Each structure stands twice: as structure tokens, then as C-alpha cells.
């Protein structure tokens, strides 16, 4: 990893060791963890979190414990794992401006970089498949327009460019399997560092799902939901089998409206939104916090922290497959097995395993294959290994290995 603050002069030339000292990294727990041999072979995840003292950190962890944790200067949000590398980048939540690169290797100091002047991060990023380029969702807050920042990870995460997100408030983003087409959830919400986390444009918001060619920055496709749903903010997304984009929304309109919050999209078609069963939909509280896909690309997990549950959906046809109750559960990541997920909560819980899906996960409904009737009031007899930690796990978690 290269020296800190190579670009834009934003991190004032701190040395690597200086940053580590400044950040007061606590290595004792991590050092103890690394001595455990089998941590190297288990599924490895990363997430941001807060401890009981109110301090923010990010960690690489397995179900057994931390492999490494680093303190954060503020609340983190999502992370991105760099392909062909052990680097993981944690991003500040909006409207923060920091991002920190770290890895399980304790000998490598974390590297801090910032959004350039006039930009703040929205908390999400994704690497190109070769691990060289990092794309981040950002806000040009003077003009109130979304940007995608491009950084060269091989050059100390130096910013090498940016392009438009073709909408306001870009949030989550992902690359399709061609490794070139970027899909971005433009949440439609405008924020500014000077106004904290307050939303500035509820009346005029226009969320969209856009596809961008990362080589040219050109807009390939843009979808805006029906006018009646303009306050349905598309916030998080993931890529399921066959390049199907699964997305989760948050509704900013009247609480009684309760529109569908989980959607799917194939390029060249219109986005489709799917309701949960009648007794589950209101309990989602108009808020999906995070989405993830299972290792086979068949099942989508969509968390509803305000409803204290994680819902599961069949990627092939958008069918609701069941839920797992988890108080303040928000983080979801690809798990270790088929239909498996990691789930994390703000109350310290992390769970790894498989939900008991009420219906086949990988076969769309047709006349030949009938799903069993879903009884949404049945709490799943799921197969999750659960642990309660001393951390409040933040909105997102990612599978690193």
C-alpha cells in the first residue's frame, strides 16, 4: 500500500505509521484472533460498527471473532473488497468524506483518503473486476448532482476522474457481470454536509436506476419509477443470476401508503416491484436497509431494520420466500452456503446460515412447478449460527472471502 494522501492534498501528508498512531489502532484483539489458525479458512466478512463507548470501527471478522479491526473517525457505512487483493475499503456514511483501506495484514497500516473538495461520499463503492479501479457514489453538493468518483487503487487510491451518476443522491452501486457496466441506485435525495443528514428535496425527488458504461461514462439506460412513486427512494442493490438487478427501497411519502419496496430489473425491461404478503408488508415500515444475494445468485435478502426482520425473495420471479426475525437487523451479506447469508444487527447479533425458505428458491412459478402456499406468519425454523457481540453492527456487511 502506498503512502497516505497521495492525491488532492487532502490528508496532509501523514506518514503510514503516523496514521496508525493517530487512529489509535487497537491490535491486541486482532493479534489474538490471527493466532487462531482456522480463521484463515472460514468465511470472512467486513462491516462497520459502534462499540459501547460510542467509538466507531470497521472490522474483518469471521463467526469466531475479529481478524482485524480499525478505528474510524466517524460512522462508517458500506465496504468494498478489492479483487485479487486483501484490501477492504470502508466508506464514511453520508455526508461523510473519509474512506479507509485496510487488510488482515497487521503490518500494513490503514490508508486514509477523502472525497475531493465539494464532494461527499454516500457510503458505497465497488471495484472493477481486476481490482484496479474503485468507483464510489458521491455528491457534488454545491450543484446537488450525483457523481461517480473513480480512483486508481494501484496508485494509492488516487482519484483519476469522475462521471455523472445521471441523477440526484447516488447510493449503492454494482458492476454487472461484464465487469464494465455500472448500475447505480440514484436515491433521489439531496443532502449537504452543512445540513447534516437532513433531506433537502422531498417534494422534487426523482429516484432512478441507471446503467453507465464505466469506460466512457456514458448513460446506457435510465429508469424512473412511476410519478406516483417518486418518493420511493431506490437505495440499495445487488446482482443476482443472469445479471438481474435486485433493489431495495425506502419510502419517504405518507406512512399509510406502504408501496412495494423490493424490486428487480433486467436490462431492456421495466423495473418490477413486489409486495410482501399483506401481514408482512406493513411491518417493513416502508424501509429496506440493505440487500444481498446468496452464493448461487438465487435468493435475495432484503433487511427491514424498522420491522426487525430480514426478508427473502426469489430472484427469478420476485416471489417472497419468508423472513427471519432479527431486532434492528440491517446488515446482510452473501453467506457460505447455497441460500446462505450473514445477518447482522444493531443489537450486537451476527448470524450465519440459511433461512428456511417457504418455497423453492431457484424455480420460478409456472404451471409445472408450483410453490407451496406461503404462510408468512410462520416463523422460520431456520438454520443460523448466532452470536451476540459487544458491537452495534452498522447498516451493511460484505463477504470478503
Amino acid at each position: 500500500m502506498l503512502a497516505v494522501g497521495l492525491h488532492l492534498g487532502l490528508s496532509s501528508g501523514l506518514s503510514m505509521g503516523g496514521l496508525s498512531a493517530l487512529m489509535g489502532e487497537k491490535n491486541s484483539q486482532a493479534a489474538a484472533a490471527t493466532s487462531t489458525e482456522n480463521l484463515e479458512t472460514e468465511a470472512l466478512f467486513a462491516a462497520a460498527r459502534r462499540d459501547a463507548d460510542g467509538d466507531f470501527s470497521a472490522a474483518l471478522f469471521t463467526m469466531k471473532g475479529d481478524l482485524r479491526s480499525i478505528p474510524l473517525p466517524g460512522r462508517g457505512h458500506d465496504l468494498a473488497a478489492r479483487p485479487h487483493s486483501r484490501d477492504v475499503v470502508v466508506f464514511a456514511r453520508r455526508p461523510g468524506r473519509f474512506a479507509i483501506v485496510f487488510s488482515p495484514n497487521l503490518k500494513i497500516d490503514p490508508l486514509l483518503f477523502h472525497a475531493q473538495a465539494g464532494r461527499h461520499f454516500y457510503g458505497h463503492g465497488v471495484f472493477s473486476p481486476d481490482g484496479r479501479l474503485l468507483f464510489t457514489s458521491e455528491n457534488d453538493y454545491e450543484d446537488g448532482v450525483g457523481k461517480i468518483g473513480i480512483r486508481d487503487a494501484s496508485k494509492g487510491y488516487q482519484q483519476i476522474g469522475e462521471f455523472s451518476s445521471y441523477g440526484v443522491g447516488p447510493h449503492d452501486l454494482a458492476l454487472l457481470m461484464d465487469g464494465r457496466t455500472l448500475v447505480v441506485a440514484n436515491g433521489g435525495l439531496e443532502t449537504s454536509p452543512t445540513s447534516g443528514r437532513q433531506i433537502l428535496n422531498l417534494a422534487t425527488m426523482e429516484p432512478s436506476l441507471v446503467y453507465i458504461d464505466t469506460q466512457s461514462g456514458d448513460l446506457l439506460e435510465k429508469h424512473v419509477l412511476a410519478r406516483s412513486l417518486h418518493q420511493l427512494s431506490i437505495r440499495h442493490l445487488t446482482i443476482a443470476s443472469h445479471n438481474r438487478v435486485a433493489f431495495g427501497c425506502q419510502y419517504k411519502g405518507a406512512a399509510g401508503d406502504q408501496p412495494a419496496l423490493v424490486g428487480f430489473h433486467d436490462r431492456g425491461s421495466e423495473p418490477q416491484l413486489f409486495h410482501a404478503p399483506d401481514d408482512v408488508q406493513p411491518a417493513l415500515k416502508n424501509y429496506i436497509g440493505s440487500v444481498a444475494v446468496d452464493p448461487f445468485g438465487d435468493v435475495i435478502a432484503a433487511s427491514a431494520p424498522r420491522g426487525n426482520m430480514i426478508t427473502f425473495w426469489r430472484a427469478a420471479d420476485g416471489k417472497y420466500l419468508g423472513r427471519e426475525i432479527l431486532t434492528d437487523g440491517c446488515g446482510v451479506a452473501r453467506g457460505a452456503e447455497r441460500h446462505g447469508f450473514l445477518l447482522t444487527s444493531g443489537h450486537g447479533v451476527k448470524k450465519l446460515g440459511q433461512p428456511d425458505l417457504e418455497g423453492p428458491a431457484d424455480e420460478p412459478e409456472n404451471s409445472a412447478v408450483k410453490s407451496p402456499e406461503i404462510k408468512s406468519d410462520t416463523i422460520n425454523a431456520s438454520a443460523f449460527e448466532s452470536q451476540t457481540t459487544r458491537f452495534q453492527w452498522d447498516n451493511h456487511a460484505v463477504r470478503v472471502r
Partner: protein
Amino acid sequence: MFALFSCFFSRYLPLFAGLALALGMGFGILVASPSAQAASETEEILSHLAERVITGHIQPRYKDLQQKSSELALGMAQFCETGGSLHAPRQLFTKTVLAFAAIDHIQFGPASEEYRLERFAYWPDRKGRGLRAVRRVLKSGDKTVWKAAALSQKSVAVQGLTALEFLLYGKGSETLATVDGSEANAAANFRCRYGLGIAQNLQAIATELSDEWQAGAPIVTALLAPGAGNKLYRTRKEVILEFYKVVTAGLSRIHDLKMSPLIGRDAAHAKPRRAAFWRSGMALDVIRQNLTAIEDLITVGRFRELLPKKPIDLPAYVDKLFQYQYRAIDGFKGDKHRGDIALILQDENGRAAFQQLMNKINHTAVGFGRNLAVAADLPMGFNASDGD
């Protein structure tokens, strides 16, 4: 679940105790083991909280908003007919703004439907979209804006208080002094009739808001009878949480939206025109009214009584914080600053006092919020309460 939640907060005790010491104040998390008597008192307070807040706080305030906007509409109609001093319509306007600032902390329910909040006052408007839209209307001479029903279907930016503020105080408002209802004075009369259309639109929105908070209305029924079949509130705790959020989010909104964007890194970078209702000189009045309204909700909801009195008398401390805030705002009205937000932000002492006021409001939001969450056993989830 709540045992774990409490566990988190009891761990915060050292942090907030430290913060309170640093501030020379007592706003740590003070969790006392509740006695049986205290528990029954808490139950008694919580059991009728929604009813008290609806009848003692929300309904009368929406009623007052309806009243003030009706008077504004009548006053504008008369002014456009006969002309006269601008003082009269401006006075009615300021009364309506204050009535709105007394209830705009209620951002859920009917206010969040049909874009009523945004239509009533399109703000914040960082890029001046509203102003441009109003100017376009004035230039167009489109008489449909004279009728509230038609106006209500137009852009949210051209149909509310901020648009009317520009008509009454902005560039060209002086022409209203010549209003006489005659054809010869077309520009001034158009501006006046447009203002009347806005006033009547405000009256209509305020009437809807007031009506939709009357006994038997869906939101009232939902708040008073949480349960499994209730789509909005399944438990009483969710109802309490709704009002709790009004207090904490309301205070945060004053800090984050009405104050923080104005101050800039120094006097040269201050942005007084980011203030709500700066054009009519009401920025501070609106903030004070917001604070008074939130404090009234705390009082009517009897939220203070839920807070512990030992080892520190937190109810009294909350009083002191609000009193400090009122004194600070009133202090800006002296000869030096004359209540002018631009003058305050140009002067180092003014800036320091403004910053201190912001800190106190933030301190109230955070400290009161956290203590109340513990006292009322509210599930302040890390992700659920402020996710992304």
C-alpha cells in the same frame, strides 16, 4: 430485546457523564432502577400520552393555523380590493408564519400527505428554484394562480408561504402600495391577486390539516388504538416513538437546517439568506417559535416527568436548557443585532453566541433524546432510528 438495549445504554453512562462534566452540566444517561411507584407513574403517563398530545397540542395548533390563514386570506382580499398600507397584509403574513412554525414539527400524518408541508412552505430552497418559479409566474401573467384550486395543482414552490413572502417583501413588493383593483394597474394587481390565491390555498391546506386531525380521523384513530390490525402502529411503543421522534428530530431540524447552513467557516462565508423566512426578517422568530412548540409538546406529553430527578434533576435541567435558548434568541434582538440574522453572523460575538445556541439545541436533542429513550424504554435501534 429491551434488556439488551438497556445494556447498551447503561454502557454509555461513562461517556455521557464525561460529556456532561465537560459541559459543566448534567446530561449523562441517568438510569435509576425504577421503584414500583415510579413504574406505575410511567405507565400512567404513557397510557394517555397520545390522547393528551392530540387534544392538547396538535389539534389546537392546527386550528390556530387554520384561523390565521383564514384571516390572511380575508386580509389579502380586502387589500387587493382597496389597497392601502402594506403593513396590514404583512402583519397577517407574519402571524400565519408563526402559526405554521408552531406546528411544522409534526411532519408525519396528514402533513406528510399530498405534499402539504412542502406546499405550505417550500423550504429549504438552496438553489433558488422557488424564487425562479415565482418570478416566472409573475412574468407569465397566468391568472389561474388567482384561484386556490388551480394553484394547488401547480409546483409546490409557487403556492405557499415562501412564495407569498417574496410577493410581500421581495423585489417589486413596493408596487403593491399602488394596488387599487383597477385595470390600469395590471402588474401590481396581478401580484396582489396571486398573493390572495396563495393565501386562500394556505387556508385550504390548513383546513384539511385541522379536519384530518379531528376525532375519528384515520390518523387519530391509528394513534389512539395501536394493535395488530393497525397498519401504522402495532404497539403503544410505536406511538410513543412517533412523538418522541417529533421532539428529537424537530430539535435536530432546527440545528441542522435552520442554523448550521448559515454560519459558514467565518463571517465572510456566512450565508444568512439560507435562513427560513429571512426576507421578512423572521428567521429568529421562527426558530424561537419552533423551540417553544417543541417544549410545549414535551410539557403536554409529560415527557419531562419520565426523566429521573436524581442524582441530577433532569426535568429542571431541560427547563434550563430551553430558558437559555429563549434568552439567547431574545438577546439577539437588542440594539447591536436588532434580530437581523445577517448582522449576527457578521459580528464575532454574534457568531459565538449563535454557535453556542446551536450547541445547546443539539445538546438538548441528543441528551434529552437518549435519556427519554431509556426512561420510556424505547427501542432506539442503531440502524432503525437513523439508517441510510
